[in-house]
């Protein structure tokens, strides 16, 4: 385990400064209320590029800043604090990982600098049903002539509506449920047969439902039929990133709640004087501390041995789901009626927490995966 060193503390502080300035919660409201066509600000995305975040997991040879997963998590946490919308997780975390770990030299040269320079947005299309279950991938990739053709449907594809390219998990062999037989393909979002439906979520963020009808898939990422490991690499980086974002969501809604406990008066007292609320607040603080350690530990493991990080990542995402739910539910309760209003931001944190709980596996998914990792 580590303590943050000076470079990382600087990264965190500059992320906080940049996001509070350029993407405060009011920015999410603006995107929502103006029905913005992208659902995020391209200016903000370019600003993230200038800070080196788009290439945070990309090696320097391909134009990245290569800050590693610990750095990535610090940025995600700050994004959670201001509910900043951007394609960071899909593109800079998951796609960059899939390409960096599994891409050919040509694929890397084509895409990694494009990611680092914020020229490309790449979405990862995995889920098909209501629940995250990568090994149940059913979308068919059938060989026709000398190319695979993709047929099927993907759901909950974050940033799918603005993607230039999509990394699609498809089944080239075997049955849904088999880890073998899964392949990853890079598909142009504008390719014939791809139809993308934007879905605006409860958190005012975006994902897409994507239909593939006989789509030409000539650009395999990694070895066909053996894509599950690579997919897990990308997903694990994403899961650690989303867990870090949830740490920020929980942390910020908690901080706002504690501030409210110190200003709201009832019965002639600050409500923060009541022990019933003090103890609950202290409990949440402790839970957030525990979550912080698991997120950091997962990222340290991802930096050191990414292929053996599954269990550490599941621990972090599991705890993030539990603590996220606790922090935002208690926040709304302690804000009382004001917590139910759209005017007060706290509800926005609850909405985001709900989506992040589901994304890339909920608490039950990760508890199960954690157990399986120790053969239980």
């Amino acid at each position, binding site marked *: *385990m580590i303590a943050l060193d000076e470079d990382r503390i600087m990264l965190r502080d500059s992320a906080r400064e940049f996001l509070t300035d350029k993407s405060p919660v009011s920015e999410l409201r603006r995107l929502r209320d103006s029905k913005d066509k992208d659902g995020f600000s391209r200016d903000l995305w370019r600003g993230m590029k200038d800070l080196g975040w788009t290439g945070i997991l990309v090696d320097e040879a391909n134009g990245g800043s290569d800050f590693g997963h610990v750095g990535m998590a610090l940025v995600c946490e700050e994004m959670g604090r201001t509910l900043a919308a951007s394609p960071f997780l899909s593109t800079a975390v998951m796609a960059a990982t899939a390409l960096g770990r599994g891409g050919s030299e040509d694929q890397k040269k084509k895409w990694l600098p494009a990611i680092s320079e914020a020229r490309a947005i790449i979405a990862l299309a995995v889920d098909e049903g209501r629940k995250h279950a990568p090994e149940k991938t059913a979308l068919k990739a059938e060989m026709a002539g000398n190319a695979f053709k993709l047929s099927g449907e993907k759901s909950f594809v974050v940033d799918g509506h603005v993607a230039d390219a999509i990394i699609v998990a498809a089944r080239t062999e075997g049955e849904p449920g088999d880890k073998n037989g899964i392949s990853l393909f890079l598909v142009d979002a504008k390719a014939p047969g791809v139809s993308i439906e934007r879905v605006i979520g409860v958190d005012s963020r975006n994902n897409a439902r994507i239909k593939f009808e006989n789509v030409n898939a000539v650009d395999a990422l990694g070895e066909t039929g053996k894509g599950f490991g690579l997919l897990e690499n990308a997903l694990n980086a994403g899961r650690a990133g989303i867990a870090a974002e949830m740490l920020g969501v929980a942390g910020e809604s908690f901080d706002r709640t504690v501030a409210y406990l110190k200003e709201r008066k009832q019965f002639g007292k600050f409500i923060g004087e009541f022990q019933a609320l003090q*103890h609950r607040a202290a409990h949440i603080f402790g839970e957030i*501390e525990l979550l912080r350690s698991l997120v950091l530990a997962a990222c340290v493991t991802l930096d050191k041995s990414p292929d053996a990080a599954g269990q550490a990542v599941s621990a972090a995402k599991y705890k993030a789901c539990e603590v996220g739910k606790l922090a935002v539910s208690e926040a709304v309760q302690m804000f009382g009626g004001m917590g139910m209003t759209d005017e007060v931001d706290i509800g926005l944190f609850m909405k985001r927490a709900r989506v992040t709980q589901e994304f890339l596996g909920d608490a039950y998914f990760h508890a199960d995966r954690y157990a399986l990792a120790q053969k239980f």
Partner: protein
Amino acid sequence: MSLDTFRQETREWLAKNCPPEMRKPSRGEPDICWGGRNWEFQSNDQKLWLERMASRGWTVPMWPKEYGGGGLSREEEKILREEMRAINARSPLESFGIWMLGPALLQFGSETQKKEYLPKIARGEIRWCQGYSEPGAGSDLASLQTKAEDKGDHFLVNGQKIWTSYADKADWIFCLVRTDPSAPKHKGISFVLFDMTTKGVTTKPILLISGKSPFCETFFDNVKVPKENLVGTLNDGWTIAKYLLTHERASIGSGLSLAGMRSLPAEAVKSFGRDASGRLDNPFVREEVIRAEIDGRALLATIERYKAEAKAGQGVGAKSAILKYAGTELNKRRYEAFMTIGGSDALEWESARSDEGTLAREWLRTKANSIEGGTSEIMLGIVAKRILNLPEA
């Protein structure tokens, strides 16, 4: 010496010097070596092991060498622990002297006191107990009433302590006493040391729900304590008390998470078996167990993170209250799970196959975890006030 060399030499030394009996899994309490003037070693190997480890200062690896410690760095100490774990070596010595008084003396003791007391703690020659709680001063510890009157060359101590762990077996006590009854309650307390064989000291064990008596009532009737046994400044004992409580809380939290623990998953598999996919054949119990496993991992990671942060000069302070709160609440949860997983076996109290109700007694013992050393409610209050700065009622 490089860390690799240190590891190599440590491994070799342990291989040669750790007696076979001391590599058998510890049964917990009955196998602990507490030391002290009246200690009866359970075996010759236990005695040898203590002597050998003490000769290297490894009963207290990180204390300075001049006070009987090993003078190890944090990294070296970690290696020592790892190498001991690798051969299942038991801890050679446990004591309140090591956990509590030692660290307090290193911080607040005079040079004479350090030279006098620390080496005896390191060698397990003196067994200490802690005189803190009183019948009327539990959670509100600072309202303690045991008084120590200044009689020129000595203090005259009168009063009563309670929950004094192993007072009936201890040689000496470190004790909080009121030296200025007119001052505000935190300002009139002092920290003194005295021999439990001093005239006027009596102890009476308290029978607990576990059927055991690890705690005593301790009475002081005109006990004469020499003035030089005052640690730190007169009337400033609360500073030491707070330091020690912080230490105790951190160590209760970490101790619970690190102790040679029973394995919940293994016990669950014994009771329920596995389904065709290899999962425990009871999804409800499986989830309960995994929640506890992940929370255990979170606690360990937090202990490690706080250590790393403290070393990097990033203050941890009142956050140790979280370790105490989370660690003890988790331990209670774990034992509730052990009891339900163990089924009727877990309920046996007086039987050979349950080793005289070991599990049930441990389960009952855990209920004290969230009371001793500051209750969970006190811990939450500390977090609310000192970290969150919520207003006082």
